[in-house]
């Protein structure tokens, strides 16, 4: 696979996403003499978790906490890719067909054929509706983290963290360390779940220790932290002024200027869907995910999946699955790979999987409040309320999410269901009394994210 003219003319191997999975995948390809094309929306490598600010302030330690060494390693590997591979920053995939990606960069279209493709598109926050969630001042946990890491901004000054998951404590810690006034951390998971998950979490004692450190640090500084605390509403007229929560059976109101909500993460699966990869329902993540074998092969020949875009596994698992996916791409192309390395990856992935199962157990994903009021906005782009959803579902006996979309407009707005699909699916399944797995998922349509109409016209035959 080196420099013969014929090989150069053949379509390249392509990696979409330059987070931990994509960077490790591309690096692995390079190490085997294959020069990949890397496509990433951000200006700099790192993905969401190790997002790099174009003009960083403070130390990496301040921005990335305990993970600063991992962040620095990914950034350094990413920087080498920029020199050695065909690295296309600020470039988005807006459409795809078998063997071809449609790209857009600064309003310019391009078409990229691929021989093999690794999809490492990462994740976004899983957003669920609750009363007041559309008020200004309510952020997703990831949004709050980006404000801090990417823009050096503290939301608040008084901020409440609510929801669940390990990130909840991490971001609260990062805010408190950076001078934010953390009013409370409200974790919907019961403490007993976290205690029960300890054996599984012991699979990664280092990671467990970090989590416990954040908790201890917050507690030592008097930050109120509550378990089994469910967020009842964000309060406020023109913007958020407080939150109402049910804590241990009692309702409490906590004043704040910002609320950051973590309902878990959801994989960005549109590209895999556009390429017709088979999907399966994942009960722990309450979501449909592209199916893959242990090496990361999707159901479509030549398409591989790695990282959080194929199911939430965390940043370290993403690095491992990225490397392993690249090894599969190489092996499938007839290139020799190091089998011992593959077995080491397998072992580390297995341990991380057990840890992940512990996390899933410790922080079960919250759902929408099934008794939520009919006035609750479920789809904020199209301003569709729970009552409209329930009425249409009953009138037309809807048990398919695409049907709900057709009849109510849910998921037809700017976000194309990326934000509202989870909540709408939970509510539909609940009001029809059928399992979440039985109502299907929204079909992906190009463009993957909104793009200017006139840009479409730039394409030349």
């Amino acid at each position, binding site marked *: 696979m080196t420099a013969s003219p014929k090989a150069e003319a053949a379509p390249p191997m392509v990696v979409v996403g330059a987070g931990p999975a994509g960077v490790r995948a591309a690096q692995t390809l390079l190490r085997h003499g294959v020069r990949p094309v890397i496509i990433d929306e951000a200006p700099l490598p790192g993905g969401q978790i190790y997002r790099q600010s174009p003009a960083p302030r403070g130390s990496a330690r301040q921005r990335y906490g305990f993970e600063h060494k991992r962040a620095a390693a990914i950034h350094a590997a990413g920087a080498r890719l920029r020199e050695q591979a065909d690295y296309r920053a600020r470039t988005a995939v807006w459409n795809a067909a078998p063997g071809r990606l449609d790209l857009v960069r600064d309003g310019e279209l391009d078409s990229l054929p691929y021989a093999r493709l690794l999809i490492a598109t990462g994740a976004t926050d899983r957003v669920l509706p609750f009363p007041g969630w559309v008020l200004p001042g309510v952020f997703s946990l990831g949004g709050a983290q980006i404000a801090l890491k990417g823009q050096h901004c503290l939301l608040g000054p008084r901020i409440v963290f609510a929801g669940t998951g390990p990130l909840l404590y991490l971001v609260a810690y990062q805010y408190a360390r950076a001078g934010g006034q953390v009013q409370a951390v409200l974790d919907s998971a019961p403490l007993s779940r976290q205690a029960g998950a300890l054996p599984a979490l012991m699979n990664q004692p280092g990671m467990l220790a970090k989590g416990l450190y954040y908790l201890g640090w917050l507690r030592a500084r008097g930050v109120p932290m509550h378990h089994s605390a469910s967020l009842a509403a964000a309060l406020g007229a023109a913007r958020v002024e407080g939150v109402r929560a049910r804590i241990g059976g009692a309702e409490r109101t906590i004043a704040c200027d910002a609320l950051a909500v973590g309902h878990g993460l959801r994989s960005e699966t549109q590209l895999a869907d556009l390429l017709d990869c088979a999907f399966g329902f994942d009960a722990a993540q309450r979501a449909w995910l592209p199916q893959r074998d242990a090496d990361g092969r999707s159901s479509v020949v030549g398409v591989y999946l790695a990282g959080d875009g194929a199911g939430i596994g965390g940043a370290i698992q993403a690095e491992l699955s990225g490397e392993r996916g690249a090894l599969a791409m190489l092996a499938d192309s007839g290139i020799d790979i190091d089998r011992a390395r593959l077995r080491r990856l397998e072992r580390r992935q297995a341990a991380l999987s057990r840890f992940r199962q512990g996390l899933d157990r410790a922080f079960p994903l919250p759902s929408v409040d099934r008794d939520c009021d009919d006035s609750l906005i479920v789809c904020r782009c199209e301003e569709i309320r729970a009552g409209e959803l329930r009425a249409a579902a009953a009138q037309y006996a809807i048990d398919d999410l695409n049907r709900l979309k057709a009849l109510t407009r849910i998921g037809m707005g700017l976000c194309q269901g990326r934000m509202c699909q989870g909540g709408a699916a939970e509510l539909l399944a609940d009001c029809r009394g059928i399992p979440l797995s039985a109502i299907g998922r929204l079909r992906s349509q190009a463009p993957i994210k*909104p793009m*200017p109409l006139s840009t479409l016209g730039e394409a030349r035959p």
Partner: protein
Amino acid sequence: MTVLHADVAIIGAGLAGTSAALALRRAGVSTILIERGLCGARASGVNFGGVRRQGRNMEQLYLAQRAQGIWARLPELIGTDAEYVRTGHLKLARSQEDLDKLIAYRDKVRDFELGLEILDAADLRRRFPALAPGIVGGSLCPGDGQANPRLLSPAFAHAAQRAGARLLEHCAIAHVDTQAGDFLLTAVDNRRIRAGTVINAAGAWGAVVAGWFGDDLPLQIKYPTMLVTEPLTPQIDVSLGVEGGGFYARQVARGNIVMGGGYGHALPGDRSRPGPAALAELGRAAPAVLPALASASVIRCWSGIEGYFPDKNPVIGFSPHTPRLVHAFGFSGGGFQIAPAVGEVLAEMVQGENTLMMAERFSASRWSARPTQ
């Protein structure tokens, strides 16, 4: 498994099938509506949503005029107006030659009283300031309009159900037989339906269904490409088309502009995808007609699966070979507006009345009678 009986079985619960089912039930005829997927989820549910008479072949205008009356009565018929609004339909001319064609069309269809109004460039600028300068003129049909296809077909299907029709969704027919002069249809899941008459309203799959009965009809399948923008401030209140075709657009109440033009391609599993060339052409054509669209974002594109006959007319009529089999498909991209009238005509046809004007133009045997043009 028990056999379901009805006087009429309709294959395909798109707009033609569901409106026929409703009309049959209103006449008291027992009806079963058979749909492979969900009612109104194919071309009937994902089309552009233009409710347009202007520009149709003369022979279709009888149906179009009859349908115009039905559209006005939708709330009493099906319980919703499906967002139908008589906004007018404006067909633009990009050259004097095209404007001459619009004028000739107006003169040709004068007897139908569509109220067509020819506008020159100055009229266009005054009445539709959002249009790009340089458009030579247009023809306005004030009584035409637009509606929401996603709501209309399911509403027809459910109205038919309320009127006593039986709707079988997720019911793909595997084979057909005859039994004592009746049709016996067997579904993939072994459900069986026995009926005296069958209406083939299977849309893009109509020729396949016709083939089961030995009718070979020259249907071509295409995949109209459409897209929708983010919501914009009010730009244009008429539905737009262009003489010569290739671009159509309308702004919905929420402000989004829905538009289409060109064709996509098939995907496995009876699905389709917009065509890259069609999208590129839309990206160029749309700002050339509505300059505000140059900075608008596209949020979604899609395509439907539609059957076309060479003369752009559907087949509406009895099978040349099989008694009591009626075909109604191949609307060639123009079925949405006329379908409610087609439903009524089909119901009458099944009951022995022929109310279809210029029926030979819609006949299933029109290709065997003379060579195709």
